[in-house]
């Protein structure tokens, strides 16, 4: 056949035409639904005399927030209040992720222990904690702290200067001396220095085969630099120790019962999931790998660090990422026990101003950004540790 053009049927049977037709149909349906909802919203808002837009953010918030990492008073604007809530969310999420990772790893390894009691205890922990709603656990911890601990006058004093009461935990704080800032700076400098030392040591080992005691050197740098800064600043030893005054403590730093309950609940709950991930990750590394490494004469610790863990991490990292995301999202349950996180502050804002759509959009946008941020970071980390194949 000279004509290489296939005989065309009707347009109805043309897959490309059908694809375009159906997509237009779907898009049209979605747009129509969206238009319908938006027009209803406009009508309802007009009827209730609610102004749309984010101009309410500049108005005075006029509500107090229990704990804040930045300066805040009820005279500040709603946007400032929301920022306080956001920082509180970040605080509990970051601490929660770190502690849940540590606890989860310990329990995950404990489940693989050759000690019968340790293994059974760890698996009982995982089974019980995983099957009870996290909200119930938060209520429980909050009630334990609020009702089982004594009042400030009879506060428990497990360590000198540390007081546990139903108003939270009071710990000594560093004095007002400006030198503490410099000690902090020195520590950060030390961290950067350790990174360069480790890089130099690795390069040298690759080039010459000479090994360097990176770990010992790092610990040395991390201790020595802040210590030096402290000594140069006159070695102040004054601590701000909490003391009972009237009905409550003064001085020191406090950890509020809400924060403690939220952190404890989230860490305990998430750790049980991370434990399962860690266990299956380690189990997935073939026993032969351990045997081969031992046959090469490596120590037990070295086998774990250089052979087993790098392989297990590849299995562990992706599901752990989603646990980190879950922990961050679950931190929004703070609203149930009164910790002023983003959702809680936005909820108060919503109730005061009636700006439902704006308040809910702010919550969603912030959590989407956080989720996206964690996902991007963990994807980058996952790529770094992924198996390099041909």
């Amino acid at each position, binding site marked *: 056949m000279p004509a290489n053009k296939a005989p065309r049927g009707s347009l109805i049977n043309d897959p490309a035409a059908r*694809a375009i037709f*159906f*997509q237009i149909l*779907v*898009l049209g349906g*979605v747009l129509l639904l969206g238009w319908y*909802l938006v027009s*209803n*919203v406009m*009508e*309802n*808002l007009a*009827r209730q005399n609610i102004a749309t837009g984010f101009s309410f953010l500049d108005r005075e918030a006029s509500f107090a927030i229990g704990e804040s990492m930045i300066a805040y008073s009820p005279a500040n604007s709603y946007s400032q209040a929301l920022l306080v809530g956001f920082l509180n969310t970040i605080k509990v999420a970051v601490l929660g992720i770190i502690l849940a990772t540590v606890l989860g790893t310990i329990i995950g390894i404990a489940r693989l*222990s*050759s*000690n*019968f*009691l*340790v293994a059974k*205890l760890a698996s009982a922990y995982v*089974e*019980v904690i*995983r*099957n*009870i*709603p*996290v*909200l*119930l656990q938060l*209520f*429980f911890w909050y*009630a334990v702290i609020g*009702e089982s601990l004594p009042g400030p006058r009879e506060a428990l004093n497990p360590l000198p200067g540390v007081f546990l009461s139903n108003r939270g935990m009071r710990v000594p704080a560093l004095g007002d001396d400006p030198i503490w800032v410099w000690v902090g700076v020195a520590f950060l400098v030390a961290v950067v220095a350790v990174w360069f030392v480790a890089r130099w040591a690795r390069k040298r080992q690759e080039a010459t085969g000479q090994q360097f005691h990176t770990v010992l050197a790092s610990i040395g740098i991390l201790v020595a630099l802040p210590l030096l800064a402290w000594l140069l600043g006159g070695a102040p030893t004054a601590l701000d120790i909490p003391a009972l005054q009237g009905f409550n403590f003064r001085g020191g730093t406090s950890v509020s019962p809400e924060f403690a309950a939220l952190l404890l609940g989230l860490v305990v709950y998430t750790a049980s999931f991370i434990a399962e991930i860690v266990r299956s990750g380690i189990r997935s590394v073939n026993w032969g790998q351990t045997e081969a490494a031992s046959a090469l004469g490596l120590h037990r610790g070295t086998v774990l660090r250089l052979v087993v863990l790098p392989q297990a991490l590849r299995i562990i990292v992706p599901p752990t990422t989603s646990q980190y995301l879950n922990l961050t*999202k*679950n931190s*929004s*349950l703070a*609203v*149930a026990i009164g910790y002023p996180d983003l*959702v809680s502050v936005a*909820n108060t804002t*919503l109730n005061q101003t009636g700006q*439902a*759509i704006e308040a*809910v959009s702010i*919550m*969603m946008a912030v*959590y*989407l950004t956080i*989720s*996206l941020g964690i996902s991007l970071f963990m994807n980058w980390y996952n790529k770094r540790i992924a198996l390099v194949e041909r």
Partner: protein
Amino acid sequence: MADHISVQGHPGSVTSTDDRETASAVVKPPALALGPLGWVRANLFNTWFNSILTILILWLAYKIIPPLVNWLIINSVGPGEGVTAQACRASGGACWAFIHEKYRLILFGLYPYEEQWRPIASILIIVGLLGVSSNRNFWKPWLLAVWAAAAVVIGVLMWGGVLGLPFVRNTLWGGLPLTLILSVVGLVVAFPLSILLALGRRSDLPIVKSLCVTYIELIRGVPLITVLFMASVMFPLFLPTGVTIDKLLRAQIGLILFASAYLAEVIRGGLQAIPKGQYEAADSLGLTYWQKTRKIILPQALSITIPPLVNTFIGFFKDTSLVIIIGLFDLMSASKAALTDPAWRGFYKESYLFVAVVYFAFCFFMSKYSQWLENELHRGHKR
């Protein structure tokens, strides 16, 4: 390895002194390598580190278990005539009289007291059907019809108003039946929606695909609580003037929107696990897209996704406890409500323990079922 003590008892492999002399004819196993003592040595004291851990745990158990037993059983106050909160507080043990007093409030919420056989019957129907549905032999089309019939029966039982049953507003529903209804209805409605979303995400049509991806990632990126807030404060604004939608339905829609995004990702996993050859073979038979999906792809994809679906359901079941924050009276919030009675203040441990046991029982059985099912479904693939 020091971890493995030989149980055959080769002379010299284990330090045992007594058996050496009598070992002339038959080598007896050393006493310390066999029996309970051998087990203890092998499992609790095999290395110095494990020995320390064992002693530490035993010490902790000694510290924790006796007070716990005292609290739970020995000092506890059971239900009885004239047992008051004062008697409970004086005892220093658990107050089971409180649970006896409040268990109907916790389990059934504010549902009229005389009519509480109706939520009980509804719970039994749901639990019974879940039990029947867990048997693979019953995975037939008629099971769907049974579920539909059960939904009607439960609706009649809970609302009433017909067959001589007094009408009960759904604002009075609460406790365990509400938790079960929210989670089961949520899952059943979200399931078909999630299949469409999953297919849409795997679609070649760019607009459909991007719409589905946006929806799924949007919902999965935010906490359930914001979805519930949206449902409770924004849905009324979405509706035309004069139309109202009650709180329970709003929460249910919020839960459905949430569940469908998570289920869609589970089903997408199943779709991706189907070998490409299946798609190509269906295409070469000349099947249309929907024929291919319905007859070839979905039956295979869904059967491998059942265990992860059960796991998603467990998470979803626990997550329904969040409706307390928008003011519904589910199991979780009924347990809080029981604590507000001024006569019975402060028995939060008993109340939370009771609810925790209920949640745990459901979730634990479902997770064991999902593990069992996974083995069962994989049996054909094992060598």
